[in-house]
């Protein structure tokens, strides 16, 4: 990371740095050793952080506010489970038996990529809020199909069957699940870091700042957005398949609801769309806050999301991490 490279980038995306990511990963890696008795909270929080990171590739980098990511998460969860259930897997593709979850996850990611391609191709022609509206509609239609048709167990959902061991590890051991969730977050971080240095990353920034200008530079905005959508979808589906293993039983009513999509998006935005680690910070902050104040706000746990998102749009468009950074650069500690 040379100084010249940093200054040549637009302000918004310059201040992700590898050190902060390393510190974050270190903290997350230490968690199970310190809080070994609160692993359920740890796993679900890491998954949310990973979802927020994945969302941000589309929502932050490509500037396309999706409120339909629950559908992509659901594709990951459903695919890995359906392929692992002996009675269902062979019926699908004439397979001899159940498919191991790691292959199932890959299939889910491929399906999510496919969906993102079609979904994006249809709706990226729409500008601004229209894309957001369409993302809600698409996700809700998918939700209704899953609830009403029998291929995914309908409204009663699915149970995860016994799974083969991965390198001798029991996938239902919470420590192993924590490791999977950690790997997922680490992967989203890695992808985001790589994206930042890639042509795609530059092109996306250009499109986000000025779509017509980017087109004049020979960048095809729809293609770039599609690439971001596919990347975002693939990662979200991966997280979704880990989530399914963690839950072991799920229903469309817990996985495919609009509030989950909204929660993922808001975590990322509150944390900061334009910094690399912002979504993780947002997810960690909101999850810890929700847990600590669960008795105060249990009834209205999204209230804090509402207050924060309003505060962020009014006073800190770069999210909470933007606030720290601004102060940081003023103090000269950041560069």
């Amino acid at each position, binding site marked *: 990371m040379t100084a010249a490279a940093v200054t040549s980038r637009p302000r918004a995306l310059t201040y992700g740095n590898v050190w902060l990511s390393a510190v974050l990963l270190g903290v997350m890696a230490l968690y199970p050793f310190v809080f070994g008795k609160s692993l359920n909270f740890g796993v679900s929080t890491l998954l949310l952080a990973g979802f927020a990171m994945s969302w941000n590739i589309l929502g932050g980098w490509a*500037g396309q*506010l999706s409120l339909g990511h629950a559908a992509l998460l659901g594709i990951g969860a459903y695919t890995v489970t359906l392929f692992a259930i002996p009675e269902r897997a062979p019926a699908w593709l004439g397979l001899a038996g159940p498919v191991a979850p790691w292959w199932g996850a890959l299939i889910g990611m491929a399906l999510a990529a496919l969906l993102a391609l079609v979904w994006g191709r*249809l*709706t990226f*022609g*729409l*500008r*601004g*809020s*229209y894309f*957001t*509206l*369409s993302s*809600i*509609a*698409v996700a*809700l*239609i998918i939700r*209704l*199909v899953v*609830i*009403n048709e029998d291929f995914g167990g309908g409204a009663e959902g699915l149970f995860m069957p016994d799974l083969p061991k991965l390198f001798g590890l029991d996938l239902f051991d919470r420590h192993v699940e924590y490791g999977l969730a950690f790997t997922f977050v680490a992967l989203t971080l890695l992808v985001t870091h790589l994206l930042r240095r890639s042509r795609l990353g530059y092109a996306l920034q250009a499109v986000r700042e000025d779509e017509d200008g980017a087109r004049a530079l020979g960048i095809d905005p729809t293609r770039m957005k599609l690439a971001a959508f596919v990347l975002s979808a693939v990662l979200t589906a991966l997280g979704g398949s880990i989530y399914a293993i963690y839950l072991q039983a799920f229903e469309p009513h817990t996985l495919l609801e*609009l509030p989950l999509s*909204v929660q993922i998006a*808001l975590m990322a*935005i509150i944390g900061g769309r334009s910094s690399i680690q912002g979504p993780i910070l947002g997810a960690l902050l909101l999850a810890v806050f929700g847990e600590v104040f669960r008795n105060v706000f249990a*009834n*209205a*746990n*999204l*209230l804090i*999301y*509402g*207050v*924060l*998102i*309003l505060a*962020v*749009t*009014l006073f800190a*468009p770069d999210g909470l991490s933007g606030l720290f950074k601004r102060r940081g650069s003023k103090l000269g500690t950041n560069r």
Partner: protein
Amino acid sequence: MDPNTLALFQTLAQGLLTGGIYALIGTGLSLIFGVMRVINFAHGDFLAVGMFIALFLFQRFHLDPYLSLLIAAPLGFGLGYLVQRFLLARLGDRLESSSLLATLGLGLILSNGLLLGFGAQPQSINVAYATQTFKLGGVQISLPLLVAGLGTLLAIGLLNLFLYRTELGRAVRATAQNPLGAELQGVNTTWVQAVVFGLGVAFAVVAGVLLLPLLYAFPTVGENYTLKAFVVTVLGGLGNLPGAIVGGLILGIIESLGAYYLSNNYRDAYGLVVFLAVLLLRPEGLFGRTVKRV
């Protein structure tokens, strides 16, 4: 008449009246968009606020919900006015997405505030006319549903008078067409925008009050109606008021006929599918009149 034909007529009539309520909600949303290019994600939550105002007045003072309109509508207007004046106006000319996020946050605050205040438990009021019906050539129509339909007509009529017969209405139209031009002509657009947001919210609140005798109030009731309002306004073309009215009626009829003849399981999907189709094929709405400034 044979039972099937009768059922068809009854379904159509009820669909039309339900559509009337959608039209009322959609008109408010479209009005706000037309003037400020803001898609109000809190629209359904304002409707929920209306329901709870009427519920509160009924439970505390035994005030008939229809009478409580006289209190709820001005309250809604005031709430909307303040929200625009002191929250949304501060966003200035920032990205369109920031007003989307701000209203989304506002909606969460409203619905969760109602949760804290009234609890999650659904509450309904039991007024004598709640299940009253009358027959019109064999077709059975609910009284409160008809009142809601008539209320919509009245509200939209009044809005028309306001827009086309008053000085302020002219200012609103001018601001919608060209904010800068209106400003140059001496229109206080900041004020006009606050008035418009107030009106839009008042429409949602009125719809909520009219719905209370038909349904029940619970804090997250708005989510569904926000979506319906989106569908209605996109059908009619964002910012197109007559379009929103027709859009509402169309949605009501599509849903009713779809649920009757196709499948009730996908009732909510019919509107969404039409919505997507219109968005993709005719983003300016079914009735043209492009509002491309998005």
